[in-house]
């Protein structure tokens, strides 16, 4: 339930921003959107077991599903690389003149 609310808020905010004209806001929108989807994926592992999947330190039975966490980790870094490139595009566009995203 809370995960769904967080997803709703992050996605709505992200989408609102990606529909703006300025590329910087678009970039920020994608960041929020990405957070929303990451929450969704973690939530897909189930929200009733929440111990970190660190063996030996936690109760195995209460551990969160590690697979969505691995997915999200990968997705975050990919999105990061793309965002950096997008920011570079923003800069390249600036030096080329014009702010049409």
């Amino acid at each position: 339930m809370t995960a769904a609310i967080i997803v709703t808020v992050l996605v709505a905010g992200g989408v609102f921003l990606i529909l703006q004209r300025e590329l910087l806001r678009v970039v920020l929108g994608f960041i929020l959107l990405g957070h929303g989807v990451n929450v969704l994926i973690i939530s897909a592992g189930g929200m009733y077991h929440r111990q970190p999947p660190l063996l030996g330190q936690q109760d195995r039975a209460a551990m969160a599903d590690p697979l969505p966490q691995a997915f999200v980790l990968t997705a975050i870094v990919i999105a990061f690389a793309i965002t950096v490139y997008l920011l570079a595009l923003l800069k390249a566009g600036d030096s080329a003149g014009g702010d049409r995203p």
Partner: protein
Amino acid sequence: MLPLIVLGGSVLLALTAPLLTRLFGRNAGYPLAAGLAALGVYANTSAGAIVDGEVLTASYDWMPTLGVAFGVRMDGLSLLFVTIVLGVGALVMAYSARYMGDDYPAGTVYGLLTGFAAAMIGLVTANDLVLLYVFWEITTVLSFLLINTAGPRAALPAGRALVVTALGGFALLGAVVMIGVAAGTTDLGVIVGNPETVLASPLAIPAAALLILAAATKSAQLPFTFWLPGAMVAMTPISAYLHAATMVKAGIYLLMRFSPVYVPTTAWSMVLVPLGLLTAVVGAVLALREHDLKAILAQSTVSQLGLLTAAIGVGTSYALSAAVLHTFAHALFKATLFMLVGIIDKEAGSRDVRELGGLRTVMPITATLTGIAALSMAGVPPLIGFVSKETLYEGFLEADFAPGAGPIAAVTAVIASALTFAYSARIVYGAFGGTLTQPDLYEPPKAFLAPAAVAAALGLALGLGVGVLNPLTDRATTDLYPGAEPATFALWHGVNTALVLSLVTFAAGYALFHWRDRVDALLQRMWVPDGSAVYDRIRARLIEFGGLVGRPDVDPAPAAVLARPVLLLPVLAVVAGIGLPALPGYPGPAVQGLDWLVVVLVLATVAGAAVTSSVLAALALTGFAGLATALWLLLAGAPDVALTLLLVEVLTTVVAVLVLRGRREGLQRPARLRAGPAALTALAAGLSLGAATFVLTGRRPPSEVGGYFLDTAQEATGGTNVVNTILVDFRGMDTFGEAVVVGAAALGLLVLLRRTSDDDRGSADHSAGHSADSSADSSGDSGGSSGGDTGGDAAPPRLFARDGPADTIVMRVGSRVLFPVMLALSLFLLWRGHDEPGGGFISSLVGGVAVLFLRLAHRGDAWAMRLRPEPLVGSGLLLSLLTGLAVYPLGLPFLAPVYLPGEVLLSSFVFDLGIYLMVVGLMVAAVDRIGGRTRVGPVLSRRHRTTPEVTDR
């Protein structure tokens, strides 16, 4: 085999045509004519067998998957058409050899013409529907190319011809496929042999419509007539061959071929007869309206093809045999007339009857030959045209698809024929009658006249001895109408209705000719729709409409692009919501009290980020939203993810800051928020994914896969941080791919952004590690040692000027402590990542933080600034790849773990190291390119404005 040899022979001829032209120039027409004639003779060696009812076939696999074969057949109808194609072809080749001057592209024309002959032969001998279609389209394309040999002025008419006939061609494709599906085979023989199979299918009628459409375009029936007169821009031999004798008959052939299937349906007749007769009359009227000899012939062709279409539509065996005969007759007299008009044009320099006159005195042979052919066209005895016209009349009288159809059809045909008589007379009289206007003209060389003479003579001979044709035409009719009573043609039938109608025709025709001035005046005043203009208008409208359709996509606003997938999410959600079953419950409590803390924080930060007009606020609040999400991840038991998110969030923010720093507009750019629609869209999308999260996640028991990882990770990989073992061991390929993404982006920055030093040096040389701003504080770390330590207050503090901005002293001194700490932390996290939060990504992101920090502190002159992204990315990529492949010699799959003695996982560490190098490469590239100073920084430019003596760069 025989049809295959005829087809192959003609293809061979086409292939040798360019070579022959190289050898003999325009005279290559003669060997080609001989070749075609020889093939024609060879084909007719089978005439005996075919007349006896044999069908020669040959078939090879072509596309067995689609049930399509390369099958050919030779029956009576095919032989008749093959004879026309090869016979007229031979005449036209011989004619071309004299017609073409040195400025004609003889090689191209001969090649295309012979190729066309081959395609026509293929068309009329194909025994497979698809093959028939293939040749049909080839004739279309070759026609296009042949028309275009007239040069650029032919571009428009050639294009019209192509599009109109190709439209029919595609219709034929549809028809062919439908009939094929209906019949369960594409074998023509089987299909026409079992018409009831096709007719039983609901596809039969649409297929018939498409067939008629195909035939109507190819044979220039209404409303597609206009392309044919336009095609007259081509040189005369081409007009004679393609657009009089052969290609335009392809539609007729098609209708004849499928008559056995469709004649039983009344609709067939109800469409074809009115269509054909209307075309016949309209064509004839238009012909009579023309003054250009070639244009008259073109409209005449339209008209005659209309008669043929109508006759086929009548569908009785007699009407069909009449059509068969008239096809033959028309090919003969029309080709002759075209050739002769070409000669007149060449000799007299004009084709306009108003400019020509009295040529009979200077060109008597030409005049005679023209007269013979024109009489045949006019249907005057004893020429073949007379016989075929009379039989057509008889045929029309048999039309019975509607009450009174026969007489009406016959009378309409008479009208068309009377007009034909009149324009035939106009051709002859206009060119040869009256007074001579050009006295210096002479009869053309015999060789030029010969082909026309042969054709004209044949027209006469076959009129007198039309019985010679009977066996073949009978056979052709029987092929279409199994068990039909053969119609026996003869010059003299005795006095019957047809003869009466003929006499009426002559009388009316003569009357039209007699009062030609008045008729002409009337016709010129008549409004006639210009098909070409209509076509052009439609085309222009289409292009306009297409422009409208495409314009939004030529340079769309990004929001217009992004909104569409977003808007489909709620649509999908609603549709899915309707179809979903009841929700299963949660297997355990899914909400914790602290979750609400995150909810509040996320709500506040996201709402703020969305509404703020300050760029910095938006940036900061987005970052805060990330922090709130990271907190949620901690609550969800995902410390690795939280750590990664935190690092990524900050690195992104810092890079964004570096980008923004270089902008002239800075942060004062006013927000232009499109609030209304964007907010609605955003809300819909958010609610959709939120609802999906609510409905589709967290409601099942723990997944088997996740359980497997928790149960076996330690034993299988030696690691206790299960997430990390998934990343480097269980799903190393994901991680590797992700690192490749990072590496590609790193190198992308180099492509996208020029170093400041590149601007100065104008080269892509990266060997020097200084960016332009590093000159300002190049002595950075080492500069502090000189002066200042004497304690004297008066010592001039010059070192600061050399060291760069004084205010960064704190940062620079601080970095001496912080950078090593960050680096150590980074390497520590790399080392222990397998067991606790950390690993290749997190550690390399910390390394990235170190690199970025160094950039902020030192403005680019620290040793780390001299790192190049390429070696980092390249070596990291190869390291990870080769680590993954290193196990191959052991027969293990890619990225299989390798254990050293003592259960130490070597492979995953080296693999992680490769990942580490690639991510650091990205940060180095970002610092190198994004962190570089732009040419006119905000502060510099402001200073330059206030101090005018300093010139702006």
